């Protein structure tokens, strides 16, 4: 998805790094990576380390990092296509144009918010999220060591604590109930809530974001959303 842009901007000191949040590892990620034929690093993150470090709960999620290793745009949903752009409330090429602007103008780009603004946009985990992450970390370890059944209660506890995490939910489905990832019922239900967008709108310039629901309210909404979709024995 980003290969063409990467080739366009590489001579402006610009690199793309993709990270596949896939417990299935190289085997799961290989088909899509080979289709893209990337010249940029395409990394495999079996244990969702990057998701935990950056507070990522859905994919795709992008972060802009400057030459000094500083976050200049906190995690957000990027748009490489007109369809994605519409979902995040911007014009069809606005996101890639913003990246081009950053490549050319660097720190002077209008798309780089001031440090204080970046801090306020960075999501800080609370104790519930930290506990969920520990369960998820334990679940991943057990799963990757062949202990599928021992891992399952810890995946479920991570999800119980953080029903709003799509990375937890869809990875768990990929591990145990892959048919759920094919079935779009959950997606349609999420899109229909209206209160919590599946992909939050991107904050460019003066675009005023909708008031974000508190973490607790978001959890309540997702918990209610997934009750009818849960299997009877859960």
């Amino acid at each position, binding site marked *: 998805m980003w290969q063409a842009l990467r080739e366009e901007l590489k001579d402006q000191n610009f690199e793309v790094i993709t990270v596949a949040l896939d417990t299935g590892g190289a085997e799961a990620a290989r088909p899509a990576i080979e289709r893209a034929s990337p010249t940029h690093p395409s990394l495999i993150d079996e244990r969702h380390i990057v998701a935990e470090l950056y507070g990522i709960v859905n994919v795709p999620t992008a972060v802009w990092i400057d030459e000094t290793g500083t976050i200049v745009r906190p995690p957000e949903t990027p748009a490489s296509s007109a369809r994605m752009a519409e979902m995040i409330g911007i014009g069809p090429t606005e996101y890639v144009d913003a990246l081009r602007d950053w490549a050319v103008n660097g720190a002077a780009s209008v798309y780089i918010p001031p440090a204080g603004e970046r801090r306020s946009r960075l999501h800080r*985990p609370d*104790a519930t999220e930290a506990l969920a992450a520990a369960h998820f970390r334990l679940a991943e370890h057990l799963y990757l060591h062949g202990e599928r059944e021992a891992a399952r209660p810890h995946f479920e506890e991570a999800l119980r604590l953080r029903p709003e995490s799509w990375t937890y939910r869809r990875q768990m489905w990929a591990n145990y109930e892959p048919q759920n990832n094919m079935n779009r019922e959950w997606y349609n239900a999420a899109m229909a809530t209206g209160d919590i967008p599946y992909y939050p709108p991107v904050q460019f310039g003066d675009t005023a974001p909708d008031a974000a629901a508190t973490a607790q309210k978001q959890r309540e909404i997702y918990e209610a959303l997934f009750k009818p979709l849960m299997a009877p024995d859960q």
Partner: protein
Amino acid sequence: MSEPVTVLYAQGEARVDDALAEGGDLWLHLADLTRASGWALKPEGACLGEVCVPLPAGRRNRFVRDDGRDARFNLPELARLLDMPVVADSATRTWCFGESAPARGKQLDSLMAPDFTLPDLGGGMHALSDYRGKKVFLVAWASW
């Protein structure tokens, strides 16, 4: 009775042959404590590299216990002191010590992009910090 356990601390993983698990407590010999978590017991308290945490007065025995020949240290008690979540799986005797939410918050305040090292399809390892000096557009995706 001592038992073998697996300790997951930060991104590391260590097998400890001779741990004492008692409810929410896990008593490790001092050498195992350091091997599994990097923490060492010193006169100043529990130390990780340059950082030392004094053990709370009057509660030292919740952290340190003499075990005849060798002392044992209760790592979960230190984790609780530092707001780190502790999760144990009794069936597999695996203990996971997670990142503290306040510590992660402080790290995010610095606006420094957290570093990580991951493999590509060929198994070559890449650290984010290898790309210092370039503007990096980092994108997380998934096959699911």
